[in-house]
């Protein structure tokens, strides 16, 4: 939601680095040069000392280099190869009980010191409107520590030619399998982030994310109808090994093959055109109540919207009232200790530690070591997502490690950790679950999504919908969306499959804040069953 008119004026700037190249030469863009490690502590200390001298009672600094790379293809041509590199530092302070923030791309001791003084000046200027002085939960300094996403293969080290070849093979396979059109892409992100604070922490982190995917379109010219089938991949906190197509990542049937920690892009795209055609010819769903069996490739988005967002404490408190909205999970409900959010099958945990997840880091953007904690226990609301300045509001003495900024130039604030549905202890497979459903719909993949600003009323669609009749899949249906109230929906959860079916889905670009910032987050679950959910028929004629 940037001001796009600026981009219109500067089309070339917007398309900068969209490079259709055969070979990637890192030296040409200097894209993989890490931040010079010897200098980082000195730079950070220059900022922290300047802030203290100017009167800050607390300061932290993030010196960051953010890299991205993408390759995209359409049918039999490469549309673009791009990369970006951004280097700078952001300094946040508390002065006069008020937050102040300033950022600079002049990454020198003087540049950082000047930004620190600016941050203190901004804090003082804002203090005159301050009615709630910042109360920061204490945080012990960790000294000099580091953390790195446990990747096997750095995607930025993989030659671009290899990525081009993969996408060309994917598109070729789609067209041979009957697609009329196909787009595919691979996106990589690497955040090299150095954090230091007046608490005595100096934290060096190297964070990697990857997001491959495609979209296949089939067209029926006679009827003028078309249908898409997007990939069943997920963005992951992994290196290039996500694309290794290892058998351990595959979850065969029912419906189609789904993927966990490894993604077989070629296999998925070969299945897609036939499935799009089957969907195009499928019968239109009869609106009414159905038992829904939701695959993790679908359920992650429902968890994100209806469990992840309403447990964000800044929303609960009203900080997002003008934009992203507030939350129905108000403090009075939490204080009862008995507020029913879902059925006893529903335990929802937050974490920033799950391997392969987008939220996994060693420490958050205010120097708090990450952990796992429970938000909903057996259907009861027990906790929220918090940063250091929020912990006291719920009578706690430590942050959950939920602070994040999308870049060095943005101020950090409370962002969603991974929020996941805990799998059941009792053994249960998706096939066994479906066998128990008399009239239902099995949904695979995410689709249309919409929820109100307090997270009560939602409507979701998907990629593939299979009718369940008498415990068996009975072919595809189309025009499916389900609409529910968050509490009714989670109270209709009667079964969750066991850990063998557990997979992550996620978003690369969850948005919050003004100006908006995006963050990446994963949501894990096993397949789950929800009884008697209202299904709409979305077919229209224009």
């Amino acid at each position, binding site marked *: 939601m940037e001001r796009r008119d600026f*981009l219109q004026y500067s089309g*070339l700037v917007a398309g900068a680095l969209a490079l259709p190249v*055969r070979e990637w030469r890192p030296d040409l863009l200097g894209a993989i040069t890490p931040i010079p490690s010897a200098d980082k502590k000195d730079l950070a200390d220059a900022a922290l000392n300047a802030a203290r001298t100017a009167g800050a009672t607390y300061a932290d600094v993030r010196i960051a280099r953010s890299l991205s790379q993408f390759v995209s293809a359409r049918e039999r041509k490469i549309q673009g190869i791009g990369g970006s590199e951004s280097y700078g530092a952001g300094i946040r302070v508390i002065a006069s009980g008020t937050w102040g923030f300033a950022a600079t791309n002049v990454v020198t001791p003087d540049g950082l010191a000047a930004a620190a003084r600016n941050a203190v000046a901004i804090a003082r200027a804002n203090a005159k409107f301050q009615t709630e002085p910042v109360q920061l939960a204490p945080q012990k300094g960790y000294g000099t520590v580091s953390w790195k996403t446990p990747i096997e293969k750095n995607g930025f080290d993989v030659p671009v030619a290899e990525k081009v070849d993969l996408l060309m093979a994917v598109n070729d396979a789609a067209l041979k399998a009957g697609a009329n059109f196909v787009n595919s892409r691979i996106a990589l992100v690497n955040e090299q982030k150095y954090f230091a604070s007046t608490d005595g922490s100096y934290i060096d982190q190297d964070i990697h994310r990857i997001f491959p995917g495609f979209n296949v379109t089939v067209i029926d*010219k006679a009827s*003028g109808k078309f249908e898409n089938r997007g990939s069943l991949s997920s963005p992951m906190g992994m290196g290039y090994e996500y694309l290794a197509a290892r058998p351990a990542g595959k979850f065969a049937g029912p419906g189609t093959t789904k993927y966990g920690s490894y993604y077989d892009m070629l296999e998925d795209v070969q299945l897609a055109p036939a499935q799009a055609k089957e969907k195009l010819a499928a019968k239109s769903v009869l609106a009414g109540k159905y038992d829904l069996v939701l695959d993790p490739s679908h359920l992650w988005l429902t968890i994100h919207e209806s469990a992840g967002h309403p447990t964000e404490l800044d929303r609960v408190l009203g900080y997002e009232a003008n934009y992203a909205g507030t939350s129905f999970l108000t403090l009075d409900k939490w204080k009862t200790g008995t507020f029913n959010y879902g059925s006893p099958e529903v335990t929802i945990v937050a974490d920033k530690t799950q391997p392969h997840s987008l939220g996994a880091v060693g420490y958050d953007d205010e120097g708090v070591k990450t952990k796992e904690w429970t938000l909903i226990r057996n259907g009861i609301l027990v906790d929220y997502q918090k940063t250091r300045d929020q912990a006291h509001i719920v009578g706690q003495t430590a942050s959950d490690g939920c602070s994040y900024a999308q870049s060095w130039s943005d101020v950090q604030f409370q962002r969603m950790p991974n929020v996941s549905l805990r799998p059941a202890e009792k053994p249960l497979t998706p096939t066994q679950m479906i066998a128990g459903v008399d009239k239902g719909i099995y949904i695979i993949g995410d689709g249309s999504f919409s929820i109100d600003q307090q997270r009560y009323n939602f409507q979701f669609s998907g990629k593939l919908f299979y009718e369940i009749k008498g415990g068996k899949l009975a072919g595809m249906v189309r025009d499916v969306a389900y609409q529910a109230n968050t509490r009714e929906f989670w109270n209709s959860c009667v079964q969750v499959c066991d850990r063998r079916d557990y997979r992550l889905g996620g978003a690369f670009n969850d948005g919050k804040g003004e100006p908006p910032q995006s963050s990446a987050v994963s949501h894990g679950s096993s397949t789950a069953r929800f009884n008697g959910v209202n299904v709409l028929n*979305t077919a229209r004629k224009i």
Partner: protein
Amino acid sequence: MPGLTEAEARAILEKVVKLSRADACEVSLGGGTSGNIRFARNTVTTSGETENMGLSIRSSFGKRSGSTSVNQFDDATLERAVRRAEELARLAPEDPEFMPPLGPQTYAPTPGFVQATADISPDYRAALAGASIAAAKARDCVVAGFLDDGARWSARLNSAGLFGYTRSTDVTYTITARTPDGLGSGWAGQDANDVARIDGAAAARIAVEKAVASRDARAIEPGKYTVVLEPAASVELIQNLLNVDARNADEGRSFLSKSGGGTRVGEKLMDERVTIYSDPANPDAPAGPWVGDGRPSQRTVWIDKGAYQNLAYSRYWAEKQGKPALPGPTNFIMNGGTDSLEDLIRSTSRGLLVTRTWYIRSVDPQTLLFTGLTRDGTFYIEDGQIKYAVKNMRFNESPVIMLNNLDALGRPVRVRTDETGQPSLVPPMRIRDFNFSSLSDAV
């Protein structure tokens, strides 16, 4: 304002183009200053100012292109950037859709820059926030809001002789007021190029009044209702009508694709009062003088009397299809009438007033079906009077169907759009049989 004048920008651009050894070279230089203040819970939460400037270069050898960008402007950096773009171009595969740079173009000036907006100070922002908070406290409300302003400039030059320079300003103010019991919520928003058109006090008054009036909302049965949609309630639905180009329609993957092939351009799809056009020179919603690839933006009627008249063409698709390369819209203007919003309410016998809509997402691209919800002020109208607040509702509606059910149009006003960021002029409108599918408890 900080930033480069036309002559200063041109000097850097010419220096870069002279360094080029490629068959063709296109250079773009842009920057700006932006500032904001954010408040919530009746207190300022963040504020700041940022400045940026960037240069990008695209070099081409035949149909091979390479691009790079830098944000330092010394001679050595500029030379290195040009050489990088050229080396990348030599490594690139041929692009079958490559189009050579455009020659000199004539860019008509557009009235998008206002000095007073470029001069907005931190004091102005703080005063606006402070006044809004005071207005809310006076009525026992809690407000959250955001003021965002910017002054931007952009210049481009290529080896075929095309040069352009433009400046623009923008300012957006939004405010949400809530009653302390959480039972009422109201919103108001303003969007302009000229800060003189921002009336923070008026916005705060509307938001607070709607918050207080929307307490104790009654639940009504979802179904088809006559609605009076304020411009902020309709803009993000109807702007999707222009999210289509000739290639998608020709390829059979658009709501304008026709069974058996071809497109539905020229076919009457909506009420004959529906005319939507773009015009970069419009004084109330000016847009930039060029589109992304350097073609001059131009006044174009997209939908005329309910029928699509034009679709945008990329230069490549236009050449392939033997059609004029009509550039896409840079703003969104819908014709209306002379009635005010209040007039529309007064002439409504039974219906709902919708302040704003939220979380609009595509459900079916084939029929342009969207879902979303009302938010921050939904009221029942009877005999021309607002009778009481009603609970928010989810809709599933296509702008094509909705504008077929058009009942009345009011006077267009400038309205902000999060999704496209394009300046927009949209009338308040009364629509029959607007399809609400479920109730929401959200306030």
